[in-house]
């Protein structure tokens, strides 16, 4: 079969959750990564390049888990200590948690995320949030341009802007419009999975493989069904 055959969403989720473990991340963060990736996939957006990059960054630098959050007129989120990018694996859940908490307390605050790494994964997390908090507005800033997207409706438009040059986005501003009380849903693709980038998948699989415990003769014999003949 063509090696570019689609991956099912369940497959995507399983491999990413375990790959996150392989990259040294907590299970809850792996679940968020997988959920965001599946969300993109069900909207026909291949999440594998972003996921591969994020896993690599997580593996290379486990220290940058907690960002600095500075609240003045707006909440600014940036990497602690230097100008390194903010990982969507660790930071997107934090922002979503804040936005959901805001919604519970009827606060309409805006967030400024500086140097978002793999901004499409932030977008996915925020789009998932809209099921709880209603519409979310995002302003994406590049060095010479600014673009507005409204989630979840304009997810595809966001992908068209971001995916050609994910490193080009240096800032994301996130707001919840005051009239966003109505929860939103959009139709999704359940037809047949998503074709993933083969190089990205190779990296993801590499992290997945790190989550597997090496086998030896002793553990092999301790497995279910070991040591019995099945020619009966």
């Amino acid at each position: 079969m063509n090696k570019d055959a689609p991956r099912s969403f369940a497959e995507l989720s399983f491999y990413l959750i375990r790959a996150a473990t392989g990259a040294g991340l907590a299970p809850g963060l792996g679940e968020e990564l997988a959920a965001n990736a599946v969300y993109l996939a069900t909207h026909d957006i291949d999440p594998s390049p972003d996921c591969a990059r994020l896993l690599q960054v997580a593996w290379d630098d486990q220290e940058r888990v907690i960002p600095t959050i500075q609240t003045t007129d707006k909440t600014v989120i940036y990497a602690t200590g230097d100008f390194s990018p903010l990982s969507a694996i660790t930071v997107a859940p934090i922002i979503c948690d804040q936005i959901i908490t805001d919604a519970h307390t009827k606060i309409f605050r805006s967030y400024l995320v500086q140097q978002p790494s793999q901004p499409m994964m932030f977008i996915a997390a925020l789009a998932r949030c809209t099921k709880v908090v209603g519409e979310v507005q995002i302003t994406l800033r590049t060095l010479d341009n600014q673009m507005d997207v409204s989630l979840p409706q304009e997810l595809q438009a966001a992908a068209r802007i971001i995916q050609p040059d994910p490193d080009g986005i240096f800032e994301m501003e996130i707001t919840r419009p005051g009239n966003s009380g109505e929860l939103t849903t959009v139709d999704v693709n359940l037809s047949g999975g998503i074709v993933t980038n083969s190089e990205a998948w190779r990296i993801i699989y590499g992290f997945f493989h790190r989550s597997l415990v090496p086998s030896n003769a002793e553990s092999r014999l301790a497995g279910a069904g070991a040591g019995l003949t099945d020619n009966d």
Partner: protein
Amino acid sequence: MNTAIPLRSPADVMRLSRMGSMHATRLSFMPTLLRRMRRENWQFERIRFDVDKDGFGTTVLAVHTPDRTYSLIAFSHALDPEQRTDRVIAEAWDATFNLFDGVPTDADIERLSGNTPLQESGRFLASELVLARANKSVRLFNNVVECLAKGQQPDIDMLCEVGYLMRTTAVYGNGKFGCADRARTASRDETQSAFQLEMIAVYLIRWFTVCLVEHVASVKGGEQAVPLDPNLCRYLGIGNATGLGMAPFLIRHPKLIHRWCKARETALARVRSAALDDKTIIEKFKSRLDHIRKHLVEWNVADEIQQQRVLTLRNDMTHFALSLDNEIDTNDSSFWENVFQHSKQYSLEGQELVVSIMMEFNGHLIDDLADTLFDEERMLLNPAMSIGVLRDLLKTHYQWVNSFDFSDQKASDRFWYYSEDKIEPRLGKRYEEEGAELEMPLGIAYSIHLLGVTLTDWLDDQTVGEFCMQHPEHRHIIRRAQSLEQLDYAEVQDNLLDTTMRPIDLLRFKLAFFGASKFDPKSDLWTRITMYQGAPMPHEIPTANLDSWMFPVSPSATATA
């Protein structure tokens, strides 16, 4: 429907000891499917049978529902006995299968012929709903071939001892290896409930095994050969070998498990609450109990623990049968509740078997619950919840965790992991073996315990969101606890990391929900079972008794009963 009698407590039901004692009921997935097949007049068709004299080749068996067709594509292969193993790490099998959505074209079959025999190493499309494989019971398959070829029926004792011609060693669904995600079929009436696609596949595999054995015998015996006697045929189920892979499913799908258990307990409560006005039921009940006692006599296994449990179960049911004559008031309209209360003196296996029989006689009260055995698995973190409220939630819903002493290493001795050996799920010893940092997060009790310890330093008015930012390692268990707050039967209220934990109890629980029988544990880690044994063959479904095919007895025993 209201019930005057409350449901059994989760603290009673969701313990491994009871879960590992459960039996099939009429709400199990196999009887549920068979009732639908009859209700909707499903039609079966042998579309293709390109199989050589040795039984090797390609077969397509289809079932037509009112709205669509599902096809079993079967590839049967020659297999070196050296390669025949039921383990996940196997590389070759006697037969490999897909359940296909619709009728496959020649191109589909050609494509799958290069993938299905490879199983986990193959790639599949959303048109494939299930991937499975099976190995022969070599001695029974050969015996049946030899006998039928000579114009004789097979040895009933051997047939009774084994119970199947082939046993499946994996039945994969829900998106595995590129197959269709469950979401693709979840809105269909016939596959909305749990594992219905897998049950369709297994039912067709059982039919396939009969087609295959009769074909090989026919070629070998020529005009002398005869088909299987219908009574023997019906008695042949399809075997299955199940290992640790099934256990993580139960922990990862707590909402689904809640639905299953809630339905089962609601069913029991309805039956207990019902008045018995038709006294003719009593005699039928006694007769059915006699039949099930014969079934128990035929349930013999090599595992000493399980065999002892079966012996106790036989004694329980003998006592129960006598009690129906002289102890339980059969004139009381509260007959079902009296039976239930009476059963409390029996072993857990005995208690649960009585529950199954009670449910079997009350389909009119409970069959609608078969339509509630599914749920979406969405779990959401509520970051706005205060730490004080979270603490209260844990106290209320996870109080059972306090019964475990995690200061004793034995309570966290085990860890569940995937081996690099074909991703085989295994259990390790945390303090002796490497790899615990890669464990699957299945130790819910331990995770709740660790969360409680970390929460000690936090104030009640701080939020879960703030806590998760500092402690992402607890995010998954908080999300789980919050999501399951209203679902009493979602958690297995035991410690899955304890050194004394028996995974076999989890397997038994799930397999009972499938509708399996003849549990035959081979260790604490895996079991063989039989599925659909006693169930009607496809052509018999329109006229068969679908209320009492479970707990079958051998054809010879039927004849003398």
